[in-house]
């Protein structure tokens, strides 16, 4: 055990922060505004979280596909599909929870920014699933980003909601 500790010290690059760069696994600038608690508490949870938010999914991407892809960085504990608050159908995001933080980190390093269902998906740390967070927060029931966007996206219901209502 002594050996393990010494080895750990040597492996960690000493204090050379430049050599320990791990930008993909770092916290992003995004902070969930609906989080109940202090900013400090939120960041504490983000830093030890095993849960990832996954965005830019197609509405048709299934839990099975997500499990297959995210299973490549480790054992997946749970997947919670994001739902339209009104229709209760998939609205293009999900949460992936791992058993081990290291597996989630590898997902941030190697799955974030690659394709699922031909779409570049984005992953970010999440403070942890709570009931209610599986619903989109847009006024129409889906995600906010689909409320106002102007482009046509076949995998995300076509035009943005505001455009559709015109």
């Amino acid at each position, binding site marked *: 055990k002594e*050996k393990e500790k*010494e*080895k750990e010290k*040597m*492996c960690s*690059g*000493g*204090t*050379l*922060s*430049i*050599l320990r*760069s*791990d*930008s*993909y*696994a770092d916290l992003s600038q995004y902070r969930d505004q609906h989080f109940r608690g202090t900013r400090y508490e939120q960041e504490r949870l983000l830093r030890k979280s095993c849960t990832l938010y996954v965005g830019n999914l197609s509405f048709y991407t*299934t*839990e*099975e*596909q997500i*499990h*297959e*892809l995210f299973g*490549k*960085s480790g*054992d997946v504990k749970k*997947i919670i*599909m994001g739902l339209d608050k009104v229709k209760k159908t998939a609205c293009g995001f999900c949460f992936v929870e791992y058993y081990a933080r290291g597996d989630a980190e*590898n997902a941030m*390093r*190697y*799955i974030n920014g*690659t*394709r*699922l*269902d*031909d779409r570049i998906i984005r992953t970010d740390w999440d403070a942890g699933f709570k009931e209610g967070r599986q619903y989109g927060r847009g006024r129409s029931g889906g995600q906010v980003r689909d409320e106002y966007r102007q482009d046509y996206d076949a995998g995300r219901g076509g035009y943005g909601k505001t455009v559709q209502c015109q």
Partner: protein
Amino acid sequence: RSARYVGAGQPHKRRRTSEPSEIEERLESLICRVGEKSTSSLESNLEGLAGVLEADLPNYKSKILRILCTVARLLPEKLTVYTTLVGLLNARNYNFGGEFVEAMIRQLKECLKVNMYNEAVYLVRFLSDLVNCHVIAAPSMVAMFENFVSVTQEEDVPQVRCDWYMFAFLSSLPWVGKELYEKKDAEMDRLLSQTESYLKRRQKIHVPMLQVWTADKPHPQEEYLDCLWSQIQKLKKDRWQERHILRPYLAFDSILCEALQHNLPPFTSPPHTEDSVYPMPRVIFRMFDYTDDPEGPVMPGSHSVERFVIEENLHCIIKSHWKERKTCAAQLLSYPGNNKIPLNYHIVEVIFAELFQLPSPPHIEVMYTTLLIELCKLQPGSLPQVLAQATEMLYMRLDTMNTTCIDRFINWFSHHLSNFQFRWSWEDWSDCLTQDLEKPKPKFVREVLEKCMRLSYHQRIIDIVPASFSVLSPANPVCIYKYGDESNRSLPGYTVALCLTIAIKNKASNDEIFSILKDVPNPNQDDDDDEGFTFNPLKIEVFVQTLLHLAAKSFSHSFSALAKFHEVFKTLAESDEGKLHVLRVVYEVWKNHPQMIAVLVDKMIRTQIVDCAAVANWIFSSELAHDFTRFYIWEILHSTIRKMNKHVLKIHKELEETKARLARQHKRRDSDDDDDDDDRSSDREDGPLEEQIERLQEKVESAQSEQKNLFLVIFQRFIMLLTEHLVRCETGGIDVFTPWYKSCIERLQQIFLQHHQIIQQYMVTLENLLFTAELDHHILAVFQQFCALQA
């Protein structure tokens, strides 16, 4: 000038004294970044940095020493940059040079003590290149190498120990061979002849287990020391002329040759201990040679020292930057010598070498997929073509590729395709359509298509392949419910299934389910149990079929079902036969959807509906014989073993933590009695720690015993299966080596390789109980090869 003024900004904003930590950060940054892209030349940057560091030595010597030692260990791809820097510092400050060498020796000894042998090689190489920078005297380096080579004379030590010292010596010679030979040719000749005789007498039983292909054509896969020895012999024949390595110190020769050199202190290799774990032997992976890129620069030959240096440096770059995929790709592509060597080919070869490395890749498999994608992004006009060429070559050689490596090839290729709209020239592989479906090529295509489907959906796969490939397309992953059709109403249990369906849809409780199931007759006549809760295969069948069918919509639905009716499952699957039957029924329902089978088995283990041994027995059961060579089966088995291993580690950790808490509690008792009332009361809440420790100790022993039993079951079943096949072939006079046999024997190898650390604990049991001399030599050979890995 010292670091506090470097990049300090406008003079009028300059503080009188900068924070020490700021200066240390700046020193780190300066040292780590030297050699990167710059407007000035490398030589002028090194000179400037040497000046800065020299000025900071009075105040920051130990920090600078530490940083330099660390980069020597962690940035081996920049070896000669840093040896030059140390050379310049030594020329300016002899004492510092001496202190640095001492610090490096200390670090080397530390590394060897904690089994960090890969890093230790970099340190040895660094020291040897310091000879070229006039920091270390050549004779003392030769003396160190004499010490290394003498390890091969030690008795009763593992061969892998001697191997490491030999490797550390030989792999430094591309850098320093010329200098050492010029100064001490007689000693070097002696060392080389001792090397030759060691290499001749060392055993190589382990080699077949580590080779990616069983064939020697077109590229033999040599044992790593054999390959390196050939390269060094060729280097010697070329009079030690080595032209690939960038040597910045050559530009400073006039300064450096004025410097006083240091002698290395006499080095005694740390003795072998029980805890010593040496690196595993390796086989050198080669897939390209100069004929593969006829247009471009010539690829150095397999026995050229250039090939060794290039491969070493590329591996080091990946090791340094594996967490930062964009940086890693950029660093690989900016490896110097771009127009003199076919860099893209080297990069692709090195990446596949790591991906296919046995026992395991150095890094997580998915990293390589993403790294290759980044490389394709940075070189869209050239790298994708090399990758396609590589894929084609790997496909062509599938017949002799190790099964584990084929697994990795399948995973990589399917994931890669999913990032490029599954575009591939499948018609080029039409040759596999005429072959028996169990042959490696059609098998590979089937497994790839199945994996592609998992990342997309069934119709997509039908659409992307030519119609002729439909025979290889995966099944539509639908559930098979035996009680579904009216025409099945004569099946026993049909009415109960209907009853159950309605009850479950009406949110029945576990108790209600039990009472419905009571009516199911037991085809096992011997059962007298009134409760009817002993093994009743029909009950299991009806319940599991119905429930899984109702929950078929998604993984989440099925998991909810398992959770809701956990009690029923636990009761029905209480006996070993019950567990096995549950697994059988799961397979019957979901045989079209292997992914679903895998996640259900995983969940059932985690919720203790079945145990690991049941899964192992199920995999080797006759019901699964038809699927025995399919990839998903082995994914399930290895996942099961990993869960078992993690479970043992977890309980062990709990035990250690509780022991630590007890130790702290004792410490508190020994100190002031008045303080820490809160802590003591919380201890009381958990129950006396001694009792807890005893309970955990039992738990650990029981878990370890379960773990050992799992491996024994697996090995036993393998032996039975393989022996059966061998006997059948012998009596029938047919060739043993069928595709099934190759797959099966390599799956056995895979168990050994993937879990070698755990299995090492059972060597005595395995040797005495299972892998005895009476065993067929084909099977025994696998065990012997495994033993040879750390011998």
